[in-house]
């Protein structure tokens, strides 16, 4: 087996596995809190994908303070990931607030009961 190739692509395989787990949770679970957890797992998978895109072999983290050497990874992807984490926090907070209000109005957080819009 080509161990080197498997090692090099392991972050990407992890991303795919995490994303699929999150997607299956959103599609097939009926509890609203579990759906939101699935969304959080998907957000983590997307962030991991962005960070692992930037890695080059033998280079270090892009911090100038007390740096070991000046060969550094390009930090554009890290900036994108930070932005994505903040956006993920805001959307999770909003989704959880909606679930709290739905529990107050409907009395349950099962998606089979939260269906009154069609009447």
């Amino acid at each position: 087996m080509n161990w080197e190739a498997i090692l090099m692509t392991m972050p990407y395989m992890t991303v795919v596995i995490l994303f699929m787990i999150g997607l299956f949770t959103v599609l097939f679970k009926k509890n609203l809190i579990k759906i939101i957890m699935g969304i959080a797992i998907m957000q983590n998978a997307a962030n991991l994908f962005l960070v692992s895109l930037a890695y080059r072999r033998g280079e270090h983290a892009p911090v100038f303070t007390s740096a070991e050497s000046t060969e550094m990874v390009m930090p554009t992807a890290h900036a994108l990931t930070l932005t994505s984490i903040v956006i993920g926090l805001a959307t999770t907070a909003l989704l959880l607030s909606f679930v709290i209000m739905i529990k107050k109005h409907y009395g349950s957080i099962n998606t089979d009961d939260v269906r009154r819009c069609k009447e």
Partner: protein
Amino acid sequence: MNIDIVQHSPALILAVPLLFAFLTPLVDRISEKGRDALFFLGLIIMAFFVAIMAYEVYTVGEWSYVFGGGTVTPTGADSSFFRILFVADGVSAMASITLTISAIGAAIYSYTFMKDETGLNKFNTLFFLMVAGVNGMVLTGDLFNLFVWFEVASVSSAALIAFKTYEGKAVEAALKYMIISVIGGLFFLLSIGFLYGQYGVLNYQLLAENITGTNLDKIALTILVVVLALKAGAVPLHFIIPDAYSMAPGSVTAVLVVASQAGLWVLFRVVFTLYGVAVNTLTIGWIVIVLGILSMFIGVTMALVQKTVKRLMAYHAISQTGYMLLGVGVGLAVLGKPEMGLYGRTAMEGGVFHIINHAMYKGLLFLTAGAIIFKTGIRKLDDLGGLGHSMKWTMGFFIIGALAIAGIPPFNGFASKLMIYKSVYRFNPLLSIIAMVVSILTLASFVKVFHSIFMGPKDEDIYDTGDVPKPMLAGMTILAAFVILFSLFPGAVVSNIVEPAVEALGVI
């Protein structure tokens, strides 16, 4: 200190709503009248900057604005490589004009519509944030910045849909809208990752020069088309639109229409500018045409059986989105071929003109529906009736909107639909016939709605003298005035506003 306001206008269009959004809670602690005054002041200042930018784009030409750079225009690939760019061209000018007109009409309308609600300072903040988000989506020239504004727009739209938190259905509609938008945003982020990992740049222009048609590019294009069709509300990804539009407060729905159309603008930019002739545009064109036909047909047939006013109008919005997709899809399918000069350009101009027409008359229709609900408190069509005796102005505006949406001459809906019919017929006659049948069904549906709301004897249960308050009428008048203005001078609108947008998309 010489500040060239015209050069800085893209950034100022974005900075003014953000600044006023954050100033509103501070001013609200001091006085309430100040908060309302700040609301209108912010929108009027933003309209001023939009007018300056549009005038400069239409007379001089397009330009890019680099954030944080030393000079305003990029001086080559190195200096603007890592920075965020805003692009001011025909597309951004047209989309900003549409958004400004809708936002000002909805803001004047909501002065009395939302008077009885508490927490109004949060409404103003969220409104400004949504306007800033939609403006950012169409003004930006960078893919990741697009993702950021996409998320800002979807978060603030969802919070505005759920504004009336004492109704359980509004919160449910907002939850569904939010979940689907967030998952769409995550897929968007994945496709940005694919493109960034291959080419290392995220700028529209640099990416368009470097892109080739590898398999990963095609996967990224598929994901982008699906996510943006989801935001715009094309069938078969339309499930969030009816719930969200019907449960939002009246003035918010009028701006939500423009927010969904921002998804369409970005879709056109991605497919034309970013990919261009790197992939087989005939296939993608046919996919967009099929999405358009499905949206038109399914939208109008589902609208015929609805029993609530706003849900019916939401399905009609889906159907009209199909017209825009059809027109631009035909233009995409003949990109780069000689037929483009014959009918492709007219099809694109028809599709793009339909976008601004639709925002005007659909916004007007949603505002009238909000006025009816404000006055009577009833949403179902069966219980309404005989309102034409007391709500004369609202009935007049409804007639204008209904005739415009059905494509009756001389209104502006007819002008853009005629351009679509003419050019699509030469591409494939069957598509044009389906479009005409859908238009007839739209007319039938609106005749039914008009009859059941306004005609008939006075219903003693809901009869109330007088029309809705004056600010609501003023908001509706603004949108109706633009509908009539576009109906009277469609040629001038097409040659001044629509053609620069079509040229900016890369269609010669």
